[in-house]
């Protein structure tokens, strides 16, 4: 008997559940199909304007920095300003995201835009988020050539662009949109919920930013 059969057999024996029990199978199939939402906190159910405001407020308490720009074309300026203010070289890396690619980067003089995944040699990475979750100030990132996962973790500074219209109230709403994009039962390879920059409290319970991931997280909300 394989380990699989042994384990499943023991689970069934302990639960006194016959393997051919149709009612149990129906209960499970129904649950997987309907995926009930459960309890959504009030703070996850606010209207569009309040959502964006809540998202920004909470993200700031998590030590992220947040700014709002009117449209996508304003993003390169915002990135340039961020780098200048922190004395960083005018250079960053980003993936093949079409929304990012369409921005007027060339208007910024002597800007170096590197494309593709990072091997850890880039100080700054720029990504476009799938969305946000207002209730906890969380960003939703989806892996792929558009926004490689390595950019979320290896650079010292991570700048993420998010459309105000993609900021959902609650996690369950964001998951509903992921399901609509990838199909029921399917997921992207990696989905990252990111709430603030990397940190650790492992030395005497003192919180220090920049443990292994980015030390700084800058969020640019478009159209907020």
């Amino acid at each position, binding site marked *: 008997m394989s380990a699989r059969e042994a384990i499943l057999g023991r689970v069934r024996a302990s639960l006194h559940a016959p393997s051919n029990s149709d009612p149990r199978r129906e209960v499970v199939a129904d649950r*997987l199909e309907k995926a009930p939402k459960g309890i959504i906190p009030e703070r996850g159910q606010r209207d569009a304007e309040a959502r964006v405001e809540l998202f920004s407020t909470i993200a700031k308490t998590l030590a992220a920095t947040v700014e709002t720009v009117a449209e996508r074309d304003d993003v390169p300026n915002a990135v340039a300003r961020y780098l200048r203010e922190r004395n960083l070289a005018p250079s960053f890396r980003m993936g093949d995201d079409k929304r990012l690619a369409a921005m007027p980067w060339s208007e910024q003089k002597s800007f170096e835009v590197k494309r593709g995944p990072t091997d850890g040699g880039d100080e700054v990475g720029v990504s476009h988020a799938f969305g946000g979750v207002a209730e906890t100030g969380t960003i939703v990132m989806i892996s792929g050539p558009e926004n490689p996962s390595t950019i979320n973790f290896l650079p010292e500074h991570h700048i993420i662009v998010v459309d105000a219209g993609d900021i959902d109230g609650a996690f369950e709403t964001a998951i509903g949109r992921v399901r609509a994009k990838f199909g029921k039962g399917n*997921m992207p390879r990696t989905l990252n919920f990111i709430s603030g920059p990397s940190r*650790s409290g*492992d030395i005497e319970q003192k919180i*220090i930013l920049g443990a*292994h991931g*980015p030390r700084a997280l800058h969020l640019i909300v478009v159209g907020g």
Partner: protein
Amino acid sequence: MDITSPTFKENARGALADTQLQKALGNVRVGFIDKRRKAIDALPEFDALRDRAREIKNHTLDHLDLYLEAYEKKVIASGGHVHWAETAEDARQAILKICRAVSARTVTKGKTMIAEEIGLNEFLIEQGIKPIETDLGEYIIQLRGEHPSHIIAPAVHVNKEQVEADFRRVHVHLPPDRDLSEPEALLNEARRVLRQAYLDADVGITGANFLVAETGTSIIVTNEGNGDLTQILPKVHIVIASLEKLVPTLEDATQILRVLARSATGQDMSVYTTLSTGPRRPGDVDGPREYHVVLLDNGRSSMLGTEFQEMLRCIRCGACMNHCPVYHAVGGHAYGWVYPGPMGAVLTPSLIGVDKAGHLPNASTFCGRCESVCPMRIPLPKMMRHWREREFERGLNPATQRYGLKFWAFLARRPALYRFATSLAVPALSVFGGRKGRIHALPLAGGWTKHREFPAPEGKTFMQQWRQGKTANRQVAR
């Protein structure tokens, strides 16, 4: 790892006398409790979410065989592999086989208690494969040759001066005159050293906080981002998780996530919550090329259907130990195996046997704080009581205790005799109490009076006072 649970009493005595440890434990007593309280006060729906979380896990456990089958199907459909492991040895061998297939020399590890449970690091070293812990706390204790003393803050027993000494001892390639006096400097040094380890590793091993049946997804939660670098940079990602990590759907996972970080660190969410489904996809420019899940049973299937089934709801937040007066006093290592505190006192006897871990469910004052803060509403004191009963049934506790309990049971079942005996004992004890009404020494109760005084009874037994009260009331009513 060696099991020292049978010598809990000696371990505890040592821990109480350890001044470094006592200083470090002060951080548990102040930090975790206030942060949790604040996070929970800010979410009015918290208790309703706890109920929901309990329902979700109860439903999953009642249908665990079917959810495991559904989960496996989805992992395979997304290009991953599932390895079923009945025992710790099976899990170690499954991991070794995957490592050997890619000729792995170094393995990076995200924080996983299951790897501790199966003694993975010691095993990999024996096999010539170098495991490198990447969670800062885990890295520190790996350098020290220790094991975690807390399930979410593994190095909570260590002070920063000790970390500095360890870094100077191990990182000999760095300038000896560097300043490491502040925690920031220690963190930066670990960041630099481990960055190279991520890039060099052949295999990355993480645990899982949840496995999602609907999509074949594994979920990890970290603050540092170490789990993510561990899983996206090497060629192979191995997830090691025990059976009870299953939840039906993504929504079920997010419902429980709302109570997890709040209970653990007092955050609304940990910084990184990562959902992983299978290996690199066509078009992907990063991510692992192989994705394996090792599903560990190691005694859990036998807990189902017993009075310990509810323990399988545990999501390893650590709130029970953060609020436990016994844990505060002795720390995690005294418990003698992987899982400390109240959750360990219940789980450890299930996994290694009550004959070895019988002291742990006795190391409780039954104050009930653990149950009151448990996000999954696990009745921990009730289950510790079940273990005490089993210990008694199997004759594992000392003879004096057994005879004492038997004598007590004999009396307690005979009310007339009991009242007679207590009517003699109470005035006798009052005499022992002297003028201050405190007893300093008592025959057969030296273990109690050695450390504290025993309040002397005030003249009459409860039943005598009750009868008097009743008579008095009747007189008033008339």
